């Protein structure tokens, strides 16, 4: 019984659960708000009804999703203090600033202008109304930047000094904190991945309608847009992911070793990348694998004769540096999450390229192709999730790499029972809301865009309707 009431374990489960859940909504928010802004801009410039229909259609899906992102986000901010108070005391001087920046500059912007956008259709001039969705976009992307700089401090602490008396990290340079090399790579990697998720949604939705031969005049351009967005965002996500792994090898070599489940240091051809491995249950020895020689060396160092350090060697180094302890994350989690992220990412790009080919010059592909395309959205979301699971689980056992272990960050005065109560409460509420949310989005998707608005016969203008809850 007592084992189940371990505050550390329960707090970790709660943070994992609430964060993964929150980050199902955020990427779609960031990706879709940008997409909706692009559709509305297209309508503003061309005055073509189909773009307005697409703006409203994806705008509606965006809004159903947006509220969930907002309310589950408050939990994230409160949780540092509630469950991780010793962590908060240790990093507050450094970590608090980007969070405050995020609130002051990004969240206010996003929350204010989204209200203006939703309810301002008939109250603001066309151009100004268009500006509100772009400002919402700026706010949501800026918030991602600040939260990633905060996260990057946990992966690769910079711009701090340790105050022994107070027992905490103290900020020495805000500029250095905001240009953490991990953040500079992780931010674009994440944003482009958000665009992939949004592209995935558009492809899924358009494929579903087109396979039924309905809403052709809006869904054809939507599909094309989604496919191109997926290809471009996919290429950029890959490029930035490559930059991120270079920075990661520098800052957290253990994470790269764990990503490959590589126990012994290897050089050149031996630093191979395994696509698939079957090993003994303890993960120490390998039964079967498919390997690409040199690839891990290239990913880690951009050379073919690079050396990649293994888990055992790093474990030895860290034991000398930080004292006795287990410094490797859970290897099967890092190994498989890394592969699923990359595998799904590449699969999305290939599907999108294939989609562009089979729909070239207005051709209509076969049914089974639509059936594959419909999987784009859930699988792109899964790729996003496992990517973050990799990043965060790969950081263990550290909370702040090299400075504070996860076990030392948990609130000492919150009981296991209290955390069990909150964990159950969040699980039940989040579960119930997930069902409602999923059904609402499905219903909105299946209904499809509203009919094209009828322009005023005299002025040619489209009258905007009042939005109400």
């Amino acid at each position: 019984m007592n084992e189940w009431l371990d505050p550390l374990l329960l707090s970790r489960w709660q943070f994992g659960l609430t964060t993964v859940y929150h980050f199902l909504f955020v990427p779609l928010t960031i990706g879709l708000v940008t997409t909706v802004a692009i559709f509305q801009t297209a309508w503003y410039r061309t005055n073509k009804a189909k773009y307005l229909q697409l703006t409203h259609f994806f705008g509606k899906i965006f809004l159903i999703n947006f509220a969930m992102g907002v309310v589950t986000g408050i939990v994230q901010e409160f949780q540092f203090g509630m469950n991780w108070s010793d962590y908060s005391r240790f990093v507050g001087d450094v970590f608090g600033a980007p969070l405050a920046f995020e609130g002051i500059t990004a969240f206010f912007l996003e929350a204010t202008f989204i209200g203006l956008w939703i309810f301002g259709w008939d109250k603001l001039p066309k151009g100004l109304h268009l500006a509100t969705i772009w400002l919402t976009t700026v706010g949501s992307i800026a918030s991602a930047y600040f939260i990633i700089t905060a996260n990057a401090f946990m992966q690769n602490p910079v711009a701090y000094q340790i105050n022994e008396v107070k027992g905490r990290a103290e900020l020495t340079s805000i500029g250095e904190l905001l240009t953490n090399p991990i953040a500079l790579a992780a931010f674009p990697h994440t944003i482009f991945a958000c665009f992939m998720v949004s592209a995935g949604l558009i492809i899924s939705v358009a494929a579903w309608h087109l396979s039924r031969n309905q809403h052709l005049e809006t869904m054809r351009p939507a599909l094309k847009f989604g496919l191109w967005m997926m290809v471009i965002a996919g290429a950029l996500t890959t490029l930035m992911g490559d930059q991120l792994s270079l920075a990661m090898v520098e800052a957290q070599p253990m994470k790269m070793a764990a990503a490959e489940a590589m126990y012994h240091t290897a050089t050149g051809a031996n630093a191979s990348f395994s696509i698939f491995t079957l090993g003994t249950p303890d993960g120490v020895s390998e039964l079967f694998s498919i390997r690409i020689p040199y690839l891990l060396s290239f990913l880690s160092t951009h050379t073919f004769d690079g050396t990649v350090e293994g888990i055992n060697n790093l474990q030895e180094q860290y034991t000398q540096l930080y004292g006795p302890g287990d410094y490797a994350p859970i290897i099967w989690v890092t190994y498989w999450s890394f592969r699923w992220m990359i595998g799904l990412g590449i699969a999305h790009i290939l599907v999108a390229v294939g989609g562009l080919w089979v729909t070239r010059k207005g051709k209509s592909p076969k049914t089974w192709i639509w059936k594959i395309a419909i999987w784009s959205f859930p699988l792109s979301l899964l790729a996003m999730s496992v990517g973050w699971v990799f990043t965060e689980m790969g950081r263990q056992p550290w909370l702040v790499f090299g400075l504070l272990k996860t076990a030392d960050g948990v609130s000492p005065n919150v009981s296991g029972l209290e955390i069990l109560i909150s964990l159950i409460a969040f699980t039940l509420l989040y579960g119930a809301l997930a069902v409602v949310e999923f059904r609402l989005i499905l219903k909105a998707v299946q209904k499809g865009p509203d009919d094209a608005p009828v322009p005023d016969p005299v002025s040619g203008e489209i009258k905007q309707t009042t939005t109400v809850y």
Partner: protein
Amino acid sequence: MDLNVLWFWIIAAMFIGYFVLDGFDFGVGMSLPFLGKDDTDRRVLINTIGPVWDLNETWVIVAGASLFAAFPEWYATMFSGFYLALLLILLALIARGVSFEYRHQRPELKWKKSFDAMIVVGSAVPALLWGVAFGNVVRGVPLDSNFNYIGTFFDLLNPYALLAGLTTLLLFFTHGVIFVSTKTEGEIRVRARALAIRSGIVTIVVAASFLVWTTLAYGTLASGILAAVAAVALIAAYLANLRGNERTAFGLMAVTIGFAVLTLFASLFPDVMPASNDVANSLTIQNASSTPYTLQVMSWTALIAAPVILLYQGWTYWVFRKRIGRAHIEAAVH
């Protein structure tokens, strides 16, 4: 000027912003069973805050993050110490926020009514518990030498803190109902005014007792003056509403809430979380704060951002300044 002092008052200002703005959202939410006779009425009520509830709620995110950045020890002690109370606030805010977005997605009355219930509960719980939380901060809680709260959840439910909770609950309720009277037209506006007259009396009695208790038990001369201003503003708001000056009444309610928060902060100063068991364990603006460098960075950010934020948020309220009524709801598509 000492930046620790400055940030103490900036945190106060942020909580004033949060309580004044989300306060009337909570009030509107709680007023649904009293003012909403049918679904159209309830939609009118919800639409008075439709475009702004999200930005109002963002004030608590900004206040929380600023607390984390400027006074990490205060943030850590308060949030871990009030664990279950904050959990309830979070669950309530989640339920309320999604309900605004979900309730109009389906036409069935049963669907809408269940989300209405979530809005009412989701508004009442934080309105009550924020008062309880701040009541306990002012009263002082038992802390160990590492500033960790060593009491239980039930220790937080003492008479003074409960009165504080009842005060915020009633203040926000009346504030929200008066807000409805300034934003609606027709019968609902009349009903709102009448309700605010009734709830106003109770609010005055409860809030005045709370302010007197605060001043006698924890106050200073300065906090006493601030409490008096809050009390006078509350009575003036009541009289203004009685005379039918709805907007003046609303403005005065905002002043009341603002000065009530100032009263609490002035009673605290220079402590931020006094320890009820041992003064040596109290968190103060000095031992709870970040370094001067971090506070300096934060000060510049706040200084540059504040005017811009106030400007665009003010503009938003101006864009949505028109009153709404049943006709607006019936004319709209959805």
